[in-house]
């Protein structure tokens, strides 16, 4: 009897058993690995959808917006529609593309309402915390209020810091700008002025919207339509024209001086146009739900 092949058969059997065990373990590991990958991708997709909502919310406007976070396979796609006056619906889909080209998507729907500031606090042509000195050929069409206790928050219904953050987010913030360097066309602009300096506009400058000057202002020319809010001392001279409302939130012992050929007109229409800009600053998420 020839037994020389027994070792080979025995070896093959052992190898087969080991191969089956290895394959079984390998498949199990792969399966668990895929489960974990999909779970991770699902979480990533959710936060991508949230990133899309945050992106739209910071710069609210109707339309579509797409982007990715950190890499091409991490995407968000949003659609924003103004469904009703001052009410926007944002649909955001976060998608993670896996290595096998399959997708994991999570969908979020958010409603946002916007709240423009109320115009009821903007009935005067000029309001100042201290005294108002008017000389020369100044013309003020509208009432003026002196020794006021101005509060940005109570006038606008939102904190000045929010307005500043909005201006920064839209690239409309300046620090110690040169004369006439400020560009504000139906926008919200914020200007920081270092102590000892003053923000200056001269003849030939035009602007509209809301202009907040955090520091002293020296206005010698130009045209502005909207709301000018100065958190400091205000001097107006030369021949500037202002249509809307002016506020000087200065210390009570500081005089606001208006001299020369300054023309100031309280204008409800331009004030309302300016206040409408605050709708996108004063916004609230009123509902949030995930579509499954």
């Amino acid at each position, binding site marked *: 009897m020839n037994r020389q092949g027994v070792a080979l058969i025995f070896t093959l059997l052992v190898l087969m058993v080991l191969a089956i065990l290895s394959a079984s*373990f390998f498949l199990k590991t792969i399966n*668990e690995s895929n*489960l974990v990958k999909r*779970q991770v991708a*699902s979480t990533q997709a959710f936060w991508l959808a949230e990133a899309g909502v945050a992106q739209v919310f910071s710069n609210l406007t109707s339309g579509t917006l797409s982007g990715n976070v950190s890499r091409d396979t991490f995407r968000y796609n949003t659609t924003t529609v103004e*469904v*009703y006056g001052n*009410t926007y*619906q944002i649909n955001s889909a976060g998608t993670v593309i896996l290595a096998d080209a399959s997708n994991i998507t999570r969908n979020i*729907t958010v*409603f946002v*309402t916007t709240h423009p500031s109320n115009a009821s606090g903007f009935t005067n042509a000029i309001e100042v915390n201290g005294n108002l000195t008017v000389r020369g050929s100044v013309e003020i069409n509208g009432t003026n209020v002196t020794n006021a206790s101005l509060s940005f928050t109570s006038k606008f219904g939102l904190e000045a810091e929010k307005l500043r953050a909005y201006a920064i987010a839209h690239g409309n913030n300046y620090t110690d700008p040169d004369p006439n360097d400020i560009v504000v066309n139906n926008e919200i602009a914020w200007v920081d002025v270092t102590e000892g300096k003053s923000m200056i506009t001269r003849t030939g400058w035009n602007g509209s919207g809301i202009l907040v000057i955090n520091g002293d202002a020296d206005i010698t020319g130009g045209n502005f339509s909207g709301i000018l809010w100065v958190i400091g001392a205000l001097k107006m001279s030369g021949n500037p024209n202002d249509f809307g409302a002016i506020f000087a939130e200065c210390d009570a012992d500081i005089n606001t001086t208006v001299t020369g050929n300054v023309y100031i007109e309280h204008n409800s229409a331009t004030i309302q146009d300016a206040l409408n800009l605050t709708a996108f600053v004063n916004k*609230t*998420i*009123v*509902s*949030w*739900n*995930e579509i*499954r």
Partner: protein
Amino acid sequence: MLIGRKEEGKGTSNYPRLLQVMNSRGFTILEVFLISVLMIWIITAVTSVLQIGEFSNTVSTARIELQQEVRRAMDTMITDLRQTSREKLSVELANGSLPFFSDLSNDTAFTDPLFKVCLGYNSSAKAVNWSSNEIGYTFNASNNVIVRTDNSTSQAWQFNNISDLEFRKLDVNLLGINITGEKVARGNLRPTFSLQAEVRLRNE
């Protein structure tokens, strides 16, 4: 003494001993004894390795299944709770009272959350559309399960192998969840797994 029949003419002293064994038709008792010892040693070693492997596999499988179960329970709860508001979420306190989440002070532990979820927004009415049904989570310590109920359907989801579930108010709209799971792997060996999460209630 030989087992089997020795092949004639090949067992001479001119052959090396190994070749003599290879060419023999049987084995000596010593050879059988040595082979038996060797085989027993090999089989014992292999069996031990397989047993350790199988034990390790059983424990890791139990641990993985436990983690998956706890994660599934946590994910489901987070997804549901995100969509409610502090005014639509009622809870049960240790004294049996059922206040709303908004009425709790921070760091209060509670059980059995019951809540409505947001379905959208009615723009003209300027109001959130809330689900008519309520979703609830109950921990049954005797069966070690979390049961998710939705009163719009008779079906209930169940998450097994849960040994502890704790909810806590962390802030105005912030809720903490702590789940601990335990699963019998073999005998008294019971891997445990805990998961903590903070959930921000997205609706006002």
